[in-house]
């Protein structure tokens, strides 16, 4: 009998077939009837994910979608790749197992604000910290959709819901703040209502090596309509969105007439000359900074005092968990030779009975 051969190629291989032609969005659609409420923000996200998978040429058979439980977590059924709709909150843990078992796979996690920031916070944080090479899409609608409208950890303070008839009494959590504290190597935010931006961010996430965390602001039409109205509205976009671009000054407002500066470590809005391409005295975005301090500051900006920042907050490189894990295995094999059961069984003191 032959020895097992750990398959440890350096780069994922694309299947011969798929290499021959450009994939399209249709390649990633399934025949399963889509079961989201009419008008749900999830539809737009699904469309862009399918498009981006085609754009980056992710071979269907090497792509795996893993989700928890929630409206958003029905996602894998609608993507024609391998898929695993797991249990509530545990998708990052399952995905870690998938990636460690076969690092060739491109693994995507789809989760909701309840799924990943309530029951599943622990797994999310630890997989970001370990930098497991996963793309994590958090659909943040600031509500529990599937269970029909209880408040979630990202719900606004005071929100009245079925489980908070007098208003919530909990400070909402910042998904990005938490991801940055967990030392995620890629952290971004985008919104269902801006498909081109969504696609751009998803593509950047797809190309990142390591844990890529994307918060997607998503409207729950039925239970939390309008939670992101001011950011979603196209009319207000210039005022309400702060579009981050690496290396560029951090500005927004009509024609870029405002900028973000920092005074005594607190962010402030300042006026800038819209015609000045490089205005002085305002922050410049650096997604690759040593410290996540700038990213954290930007992630914390909130309406009404500030616009909502969208874009890639952080994009740095660190060896991935799966690379390091496989690296130790390859090193051990190099040092000790491929595992030999006879040697293993006979290690230490043995004796013969004749």
């Amino acid at each position, binding site marked *: 009998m032959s020895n097992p051969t750990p398959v440890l190629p350096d780069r994922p291989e694309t299947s011969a077939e798929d290499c021959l032609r450009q994939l399209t969005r249709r390649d990633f659609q399934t025949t399963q009837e889509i079961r989201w409420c009419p008008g749900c923000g999830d539809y737009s996200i699904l469309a862009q994910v399918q498009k981006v998978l085609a754009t980056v040429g992710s071979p*269907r058979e090497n792509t795996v979608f893993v989700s928890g439980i929630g409206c958003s977590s029905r996602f*894998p059924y609608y993507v024609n790749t391998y898929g695993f*709709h*797991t249990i509530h909150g545990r998708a990052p843990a399952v995905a870690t197992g998938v990636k*460690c078992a076969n690092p060739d796979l491109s693994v995507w996690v789809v989760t909701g604000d309840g799924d990943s920031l309530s029951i599943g916070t622990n797994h999310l944080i630890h997989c970001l910290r370990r930098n497991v090479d996963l793309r994590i899409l958090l659909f943040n609608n600031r509500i529990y959709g599937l269970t029909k409208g209880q408040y979630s950890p990202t719900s606004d303070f005071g929100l009245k819901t079925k489980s908070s008839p007098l208003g919530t009494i909990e400070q909402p959590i910042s998904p990005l703040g938490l991801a940055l504290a967990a030392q995620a190597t890629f952290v971004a935010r985008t919104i269902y209502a801006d498909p081109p931006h969504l696609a751009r961010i998803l593509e950047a996430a797809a190309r990142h090596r390591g844990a890529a965390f994307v918060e997607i602001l998503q409207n729950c039409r039925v239970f939390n309509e309008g939670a992101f109205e001011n950011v979603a509205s196209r009319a207000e976009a210039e005022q309400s969105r702060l579009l981050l671009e690496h290396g560029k000054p951090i500005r927004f407002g009509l024609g870029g007439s405002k900028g973000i500066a920092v005074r005594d470590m607190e962010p402030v809005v300042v006026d800038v000359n819209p015609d000045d391409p490089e205005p002085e005295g305002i922050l410049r975005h650096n997604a690759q900074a040593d410290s996540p301090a700038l990213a954290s500051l930007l992630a914390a900006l909130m309406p009404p005092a500030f616009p909502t920042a969208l874009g890639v907050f952080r994009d740095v490189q660190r060896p991935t968990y799966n690379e390091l894990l496989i690296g130790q295995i390859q090193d051990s094999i190099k040092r000790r030779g491929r595992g030999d059961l006879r040697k293993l069984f006979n290690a230490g003191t043995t004796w013969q009975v004749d």
Partner: protein
Amino acid sequence: MDTCPTNGKQFVEVQQATVRFAGDSGDGMQLVGSQFADIASLMGNAIRSIPDFPSEIRAPVGTLAGVSGYQLNFGDEEISTPGDSPFVLVAMNPAALKVSLPDVQPGGIIIVNQDEFAPANLAKARYPANPLEDGSLAGYRVIPVAITQLNEEATRPSGLSGSQRARCKNFFALGIVLWLYDRRVQPVLEWLMTKFRKTPEVMAANGASLRAGYNFANTTELFRVHYHVAPAQLPKGRYRRVTGNEALALGCIAAAHQVERCLVYASYPITPASEVLHELARHKEFDVRVIQCEDEIAACCAAIGASFAGAVGATGTSGPGLALKTEALGLAVMTELPLVAINVQRAGPSTGMPTKTEQADLNMALYGRHGEAPLVVLAAATPADCFPMAFEAVRLATRYMTPVILLSDSFLANSAEALAIPDPDRLPDLRVAAPTKDTPNFAPYRRDAKTLARPWAIPGTPGLEHRIGGLEKEDVTGVVTYDAANHRRMVEQRARKIAGIADDIPPAKVEGAPSGDLLMVGWGSTYGAIAAAVRQAQAEGRAVSHLHLRHLNPLPRGVESALRAFRKVLVPENNTGQLSAYLRSQFSVPIRPLTKVEGRPFLIRELRQAIEETLKHE
């Protein structure tokens, strides 16, 4: 008992001996104990050992909580427990004496390091008076030896510091016991030479102390008798000593090797299962991918994810951790993925007594999931049996696409015995044919006609893209559906798949006559004590037999007829009667439970007595 004179001393032939080394945690008792076990093994004895660790946190030197013991039972015939009660106790300090004394055989030999019986140490052991002097040890043969002092002298030439030399005194004690049981010092010296290759002074000092102990025993007037235990009649082959946890790790590695897939072991540390994690982490050259997870839920989920992706996914824990895996185990049942969940049981409920043994998680393994969620439950019977049972767990998990819970316990985990080293070339081939693009009519829930397993369609395989999850699935297609008839069918098929495994495992095998007055039915770590008690009873002419269950769900074929072939059935368990209730629920047969829930395994004599009483009372 043969006796013959050797150098002025008596020489007694015995069939079996139980020895305990006890001292402070820092005294190296585990080391000399296991050396003695190896020597006994090398000389052909059957062995079984058990350490007695201090509980959790290291306690202050000299206190009762800090006592560390190692008990070895060895003999010239089958040895199936670490021994009911030591015949020889080595007590390196008063605390060690106090902790161990209740177990020592009346009339047994107690070798004490008299140098440590000073007032301060007596106080730490809460001795109001010196037991060496107050007559309280009258029922034993007490042999006080100035071990500290003699070791000090013997090691002086090594040039080591006083404190380094003091650490050699365990070898002095070993030397004494080697003489007492007529064992050679040479193998220990050889072992010291490899072990301390890089620090020859340490090697020399330990060696000197060992020889000094041996010579002291040989020459002193204190010892008038020494003993000989003849080699046992063991099956031919090569052997090594393993604890249950070591054997679990070896079994998992061997099985994954035979499946020809990598082993992903995801776990969160917990006593007494952590050594499986440690052991597997050391064998990366076998492509064992160990993930120390953030908690047990993550561990179980990561193992499931790994299995989905085509690895042998395994996870290990103890009771509190298995409790946390409950929900994820249900997911594995629903998605029908292979998964091995090892549960090294400890005394509960809740945090319980983490360093003590118990068998009270059987119910949770059998029943502890919401919904109809049948899975395979196995239990290892002895430390060495952990090897084949881990192998069996992987075999069933991958062949039947099912989670398997494998039960061990604290007693098996820490106890050691000889494992007959298997020939790797003769291990069964466990490869499972995975479907490919060319598999006709692939569907994720199309079952194999024989095993009822669904195909293991592995991500990365072109053309087999599919979606699974925890929602109910349509038969064959795997599409989500809440259809009533489909649900009934799927519940039934999942159950039938597990039940059908009964045809793929050995039928119930009664040890002893196939019918009689009394059948002793056990599972798990009670094996050794039951086997020994039954053998003794049979030797005395009782119509007693033994049925030991390694497969608990499904039960092997033939259990019911075996139960019905005896007038009485007695089920000894380290719980309040879980197997008894389970067997009754399956077969409506009258069954008597014999329970011991004290954090300790059964003694042979307790079972002997129970057999007699059961036979006596009608």
